[in-house]
Structure formats: structure tokens, C-alpha cells
């Protein structure tokens, strides 16, 4: 049960975070109208759960967790990918990052960030990312959460956050390299990664 005082307190805490939740909702849905729907549903659920919120804890993380869960239950278009869900966790996920760079260098694209219209290319790359990868990029790279905070929001171990994040970034780098190559930038032969 909630009352008018609860509503006032909830609004005081939650509404200042609306822009943050809205950005995250867009990152998840990639659609402005769906994002607004997701934000509204997130806030309604959060209000219903307001009395479970511990004052002094991180309201932003709390709202992001509800937003993520709401997206997964109501808006998710993809089935969970078993190959991503059961991913191995380890430092080996960090090693391939230099392979993208080495591949770019080999193709004469070591300076692709200076030669490619990177923003639109990355937007397309985000569209193509599996949702589990997109949500971790949104949390860490766009919203600035630490690995630990992202792990709490996603309710997974920190090792899973690192694994997904590194693999997502690798995909985005490879996407940029592919876009640059399609545009005729670069030279030489690239190796397959």
C-alpha cells in the first residue's frame, strides 16, 4: 500500500533520474516510442515497490535494475542466446581486443577513427548487437557504471560483466572495420580474426 506521502517521496527521489532512465531505455529498445513506454512502466513498477527501496542506497541502480527487468519481460524481442548466457569467463576475453587493432592495422585502417564517420557507424553496430551485449555497453560505456555496479544491476557476477563487455566491444570494433572496408577505406589485406 502506498499513500500520497509515499508518492511525493518517490517523485523527489526518482523523477530527477528520469533522463538517465530514459537514455538507458532507449539503449535497450533502440526505439524512441518504446523507450518512453518502458520508462513509464519502469516508474510505475518502481513506485509499487517503493517501500522495498532502502533510503540511502543507489536509487539510480535500483531504477536501472527495474528498467532492465521490465525490458526483458515485456519488450525483449530476442530469445536469450545460450551461447552468450553460458559464456566462459576469464582474462582470455581481453586478449582479442588487440586482434581487432592488429587486423585494422594490417588493412591500413589503424587510423579508422579519424577517417570514418564513427558515430553513425557505431549506432548501426549497437543496433546489431545481441541485447545482452547492448545492455552492458549501455551501462558501462554510455552510463558510466563500474563493473561492480553493472553486475548488481544485471544480477550477474562481475566476471560475466567483463566477459560480455569485452566481447561486445570487440564486435563493435570489428563492425567499424567492416564498415570502413566496405567504404573502400584502407589498403592491403586483412586477416580473419
Amino acid at each position, binding site marked *: 500500500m502506498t499513500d500520497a506521502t509515499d508518492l511525493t517521496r*518517490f517523485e523527489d527521489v526518482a523523477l530527477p533520474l528520469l*533522463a538517465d532512465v*530514459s537514455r538507458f531505455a532507449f539503449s535497450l529498445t533502440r526505439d524512441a516510442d518504446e*523507450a518512453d513506454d518502458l520508462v513509464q512502466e519502469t516508474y*510505475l513498477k518502481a513506485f509499487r515497490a517503493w517501500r522495498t527501496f532502502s533510503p540511502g542506497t543507489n536509487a539510480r541502480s535500483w531504477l536501472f535494475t527495474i528498467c532492465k527487468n521490465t525490458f526483458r519481460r515485456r519488450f525483449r524481442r530476442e530469445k536469450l542466446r545460450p551461447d552468450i548466457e553460458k559464456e566462459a569467463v576469464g*582474462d582470455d576475453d581481453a*586478449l582479442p581486443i588487440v586482434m581487432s587493432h592488429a587486423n585494422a592495422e594490417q588493412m591500413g585502417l589503424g587510423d579508422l577513427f579519424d577517417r570514418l564517420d*564513427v558515430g553513425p557507424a557505431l549506432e548501426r553496430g549497437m543496433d546489431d548487437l545481441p541485447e545482452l551485449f547492448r545492455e552492458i555497453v549501455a551501462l558501462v560505456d554510455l552510463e558510466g557504471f563500474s563493473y561492480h555496479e553493472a553486475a548488481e544491476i544485471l544480477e550477474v557476477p562481475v566476471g560475466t560483466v567483463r566477459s560480455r563487455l569485452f566481447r561486445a566491444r570487440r564486435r563493435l570494433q570489428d563492425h567499424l572495420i567492416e564498415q570502413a572496408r566496405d567504404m573502400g577505406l584502407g589498403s592491403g589485406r586483412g586477416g580473419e580474426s
Partner: protein
Amino acid sequence: MSDDKKVRDCESVVRALWDFLDAELDDATAAEINVHLDACGDCRSHADFEQRLVDELAGLRRENADPDALRERVRAALREAGAGG
């Protein structure tokens, strides 16, 4: 190589590179990485390439086109829910 100052090899630096760029390492480890990057052109080049990606991704933050309308919509929904108990 002194006892109190580890010299990192390229592989260990590469393994820690994302954690380094994301400021996830403790100060001592980050300092070791910095020492290596100052001396190793290949690893510095990798780090710069990865940093550019992180910087560009941060630029993808998209603000709501009409935040006032969304705020009013959410407030109205909350008040309706509040009125219903």
C-alpha cells in the same frame, strides 16, 4: 628489475587493458600499466585504439527529445496509480 617494482610484459598488459582504461584497477596496478605503456609503443598504440572506441561510445548517449512531455506523462501515470492505492 627491483623487488618492489614489477615490470609487466606485453601480454599481461593487454589482458589488463580494458580494466585499465575503465579505471577498474587499483592504483598500484594502474601505475605498472602506465610504466609499461610509456615504454612500449605497440601496447600504447593498442591502448590508444581502444580508448578511442570508449570515447566514441560515450558520445552515443542520446537524450530524450521531449523530456518535459515524458516527465508529465510519468507523473500523470504515477498519480493515477497513487489514487488507486
